[in-house]
């Protein structure tokens, strides 16, 4: 009898241990981390390599990230060569076959996304042009649904026993996106067609979704720091179009936009490009709440 009880106890301990094993996920950015957490909930343990206030193009491939990658069951990347300067090297050094490109644990979040600004020819004379198209697609919340779909599919492959759980969370995520999208569109409806200036060419998906018009960029070409000639051109455009807002990102210095602001009165607004860019942006939904509220504050003037 005693032996039976011990076996039953051992069975329950073993099964609860197995059930408690979380899927270990490493993402390149905090947005992918947030969506993975919303889909995986308590069945995932997620680490993001880049911080929310960091330029995702230029993350330093510190060896300490290799430790995380070596233990990962799944790796989620923005893709489209956004992380070309650092993630391939980290992946190779991880010695983890589960997350190499082509494996079940390698998730390209851009799969199925309708891309913008896909160049017909590549010439580095035009600056940092991405050969597959503009990679900042997560800044359209509708694309968030496709990202979540890709992540959900990846989680199901790794943890098929939790398929229903992940699918239910995906459904809830999509429903919340639809709900919030109505709210965001309503807020932005008054400002549709508003002309703005941006520092870097990373807002085209956001621009299209919320009906803004980015007239020009402080960078004369993507990745090239603002030049005096470009700033003169921008000042003229701001004055000519009665532009009220210049949007930038947390990882760019504001010295150039402040020059334009001083000359024209247009307000420089730092928007969040990723979850965690500011303390108030705790998840993927907060990202748009924050950006839309800040933008409206600027455009109201």
């Amino acid at each position, binding site marked *: 009898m005693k032996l039976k009880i011990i076996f039953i106890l051992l069975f329950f301990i073993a099964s609860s241990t197995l059930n408690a094993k979380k899927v270990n996920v490493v993402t390149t950015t905090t947005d992918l981390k947030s969506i993975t957490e919303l889909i995986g909930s308590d069945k995932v343990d997620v680490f993001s390599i880049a*911080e929310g*206030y*960091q*330029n995702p193009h*230029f993350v*330093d*491939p*510190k*060896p*300490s990230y*290799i*430790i995380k990658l*070596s233990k990962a069951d799944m790796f989620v990347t923005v893709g489209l060569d956004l992380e*070309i*300067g650092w993630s*391939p*090297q980290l992946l*190779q050094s991880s*010695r983890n*076959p589960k997350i*190499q*490109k*082509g494996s079940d644990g390698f998730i390209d979040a851009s799969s199925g996304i*309708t*891309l*913008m600004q896909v160049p017909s020819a590549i*010439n580095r004379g*035009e*600056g*940092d*042009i991405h050969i*597959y*198209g503009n990679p900042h697609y997560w800044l359209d919340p509708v694309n968030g649904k496709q990202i979540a779909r890709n992540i959900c599919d990846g989680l199901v492959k790794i943890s098929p026993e939790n398929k229903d759980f992940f699918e239910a969370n995906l459904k809830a995520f999509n429903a919340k996106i639809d709900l919030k999208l109505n709210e965001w569109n309503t807020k932005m409806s008054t400002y*549709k067609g508003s002309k703005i200036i941006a520092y870097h*060419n990373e807002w*085209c998906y956001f*621009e*299209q979704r919320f*009906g803004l*018009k*980015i*007239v020009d960029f402080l960078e*004369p*070409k993507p*990745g*090239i*720091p603002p030049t*005096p*000639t470009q*700033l*003169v*051109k921008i*000042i*003229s455009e701001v004055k000519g179009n009665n532009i009220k807002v210049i949007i930038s990102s947390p*990882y760019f*210095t*504001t*010295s150039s936009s402040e*020059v334009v602001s001083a*000359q024209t009165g247009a307000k420089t607004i730092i928007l969040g490009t990723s979850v965690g860019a500011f303390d108030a942006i705790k998840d993927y939904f907060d990202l748009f709440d924050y950006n839309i509220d800040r933008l409206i504050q600027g455009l109201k003037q």
Partner: protein
Amino acid sequence: MYYSISTTLIAAFFIIIPERLLSQNDTIPKTDSVLLKQIEKQLNKESTPQVAQTRTAPSVLPDIGVIGDFQTSYRNNAKRNFNAGIHEAEISFQSVVDPYARADFFLTIGKDPVTGKFSADLEEGYLTTLSLPAHLQLKAGKFKSAFGRINPVHPHALPFISIPNAYENYFSEGINDEGISLSWLVPNSAFYQELTVQVTDGPIDNPSFSRSAGNRYLGLAHLKNFFDLSPNSTLELGLSGITGANYFDLRTNIAAVDLTYKWKPVRYNTYKSFTWQSEAWFSNADTSKSKAVNTFGMYSFINYQLSKRLFFTGMFSWSNKPYSVSAVEKSYSLTFGWYATEFQKIEIEGMNITRNIEKGLNQIVLRWIFVIGSHGAHQY
């Protein structure tokens, strides 16, 4: 500090330029860039969803890159004081072979300093496994040895033009050899540790080591320890040991330590950074069956990023020679670098070398590095 300098410079620009320039749009150069066309397109378009576009066609071709290294220099103690020309061109081919391995090839076309003729050489060519168990990684082919910090790095990626004089005295342009390398990611959750063991044929034309005609090979072990001190700062401590045949076909043993501190603010990592890197090595070289020479060498440099594009490096080195403890050489150098983009940089360097046995040297070198095609990222 950076902001105040940049703001001052930009503000100064607006004070200096004529006021009329600001109001004359026709003085602004028009560009036909893709970016401008995109902006014009966006200005004219209605906010309707864009049509799905196809992605770039996939290709099985490896990533191909070419790096040009143009140099011009003045040296005071030389038969020919001024030199200019392409110092080296590097052609790289890099790709994944299959799910189990990747391959990297680097061909160099270098100029012979005596004849001035160019010749091609295989700088590196190796296969790296991607899926060995137990966090192991095997590399086979010709590669730069995992010795310290400078050795594994290609010269164009270093923040100075001339290899530290002390380093050159012992390792010439670095140990680059044929053989196998096995590295192991130590299962340490507290900090990153990687142990690398390499066995190679023995380098040709290296001051400390030679390729033996007999069964003497070059053995190397390197332990890399990497610590995150804070989100913005890291420390790397490396320990290396090498043993192999020397010029006398006897044995040389070298023990080395490297220490690198880096500060790079995560948020503004493209604008500001600071690196302090040092290496020191102790050499024990048998020059005859009854005599061994113990010598020492070291270098230390700081690299400071003044702004997004401006870098400054100051370096000091001290060394004996591999077979002479009485020879002492010291060098100082200053390098200023202007990085136009990730694909182009210009550096100017002044260096002074003092020697107690031979004549010293003063030199100024200008280097212009440029990259076309695709080139893989370098190690942190």
